[in-house]
C-alpha cells in the first residue's frame, strides 16, 4: 500500500486545518489488510473516516483531558491527526470496518469478492 500525506487541506469551514501524521502499521491478512493507526487522545466521536476513489482518509480530532496547573515540560504536539492511504482497487470500499480502543484505530480492509481466485468449471 502506498501512503500519501499532505500537510494542510481546505476544510468545509474554509480555514486550513493543521494536522500531524500519526504512526501507522500495515499488515496483510488472508483477505485483505489491517491498518493500525496511533491516535492518542482521540475518542470515537472525534474520528472521521472517508473514502474517495481509491483514497482512504482518517482524521482524528483530539479531546485531551483538561489538566489543572501550568505546563512546565512539554513533549507532545497537541494537534489533530490525519493520515491518507491510497489502496489498490482490489479492496472493496463497502467492506471497510473500523474500531478504536485506547487511542489505537484499527481498520480492516477486505478484498472484493471478484478478485479472489475462482475456479471455472468446464461444461
Amino acid at each position, binding site marked *: *500500500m502506498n*501512503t500519501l500525506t499532505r500537510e494542510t487541506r481546505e476544510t468545509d469551514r474554509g480555514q486550513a486545518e493543521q494536522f500531524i501524521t500519526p*504512526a*501507522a*502499521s*500495515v*499488515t*496483510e*491478512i*488472508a483477505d485483505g*489488510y*489491517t491498518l*493500525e493507526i*496511533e*491516535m*492518542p*487522545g*482521540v*475518542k470515537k466521536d472525534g474520528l472521521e473516516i472517508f473514502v474517495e476513489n481509491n483514497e482512504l482518509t482518517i482524521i482524528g480530532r483530539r*479531546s*485531551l*483531558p483538561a*489538566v*489543572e*496547573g*501550568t*505546563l*512546565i*515540560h*512539554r*513533549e*507532545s*504536539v497537541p494537534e489533530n491527526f490525519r493520515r491518507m492511504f491510497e489502496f489498490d482497487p482490489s479492496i472493496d470500499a463497502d467492506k471497510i470496518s473500523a474500531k478504536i*480502543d*485506547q*487511542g*489505537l484505530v484499527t481498520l480492516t480492509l477486505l478484498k472484493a469478492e471478484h478478485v479472489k481466485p475462482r475456479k471455472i468449471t468446464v461444461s
Partner: protein
Amino acid sequence: MNLIRYQAPDSTPWLALDRWSSLRDELNSFFDMPFWSSFGRTGQLFTGWSPALDLYESGDHFVAVVELPGMRKQAIDISLHDGMLTISGERKRESNNGETALRTERYVGAFRRSITLPTRVDPSKVSATYRDGILKVTLPKAEEAKPKQIQVS
C-alpha cells in the same frame, strides 16, 4: 618510485589540503563526544520507543501526561523513587497467524520514561488514569512542599 603526482606550483594544492584537514578535525570531534549525547531526551544509548511526556504543576500537585496508545493498563508500570517518577511498560508483538507485516511504524517492545520532579511528592497519594491512550498520573505534593502563607503577627 613516488606515488604522489608532482603538483605544478601554479595549481592551488593548499585549498584541497585545507578541506581534508577540517574533515579530519570533524571526525576527531565526533569520536570525542559521548555517543549518546546527540540523542537528547533521556540519555538512552539507542533511540527506541520514547513516548511523549508532559508535566504540569499546580499549587498542590503535579500531573504527568504520557501518550501511550493501544496499551493494556496492566502492561503499564508506574513507580516513584527518590523524587523521580518512572513510567515503563512493554507492548508485545502480537503473534503472526499467517499475516505479513507490510509497514511497521508503530514501536513494539519496552519503553521507559523518567522525570525528576522539582518538589517532593507524597507517594501514598499518587493516582493514575488511562483513557483513550493517554496516561495521566496525578502526584500530590508533600505537605511541607506546598506553598504556604506566613502570617505576620
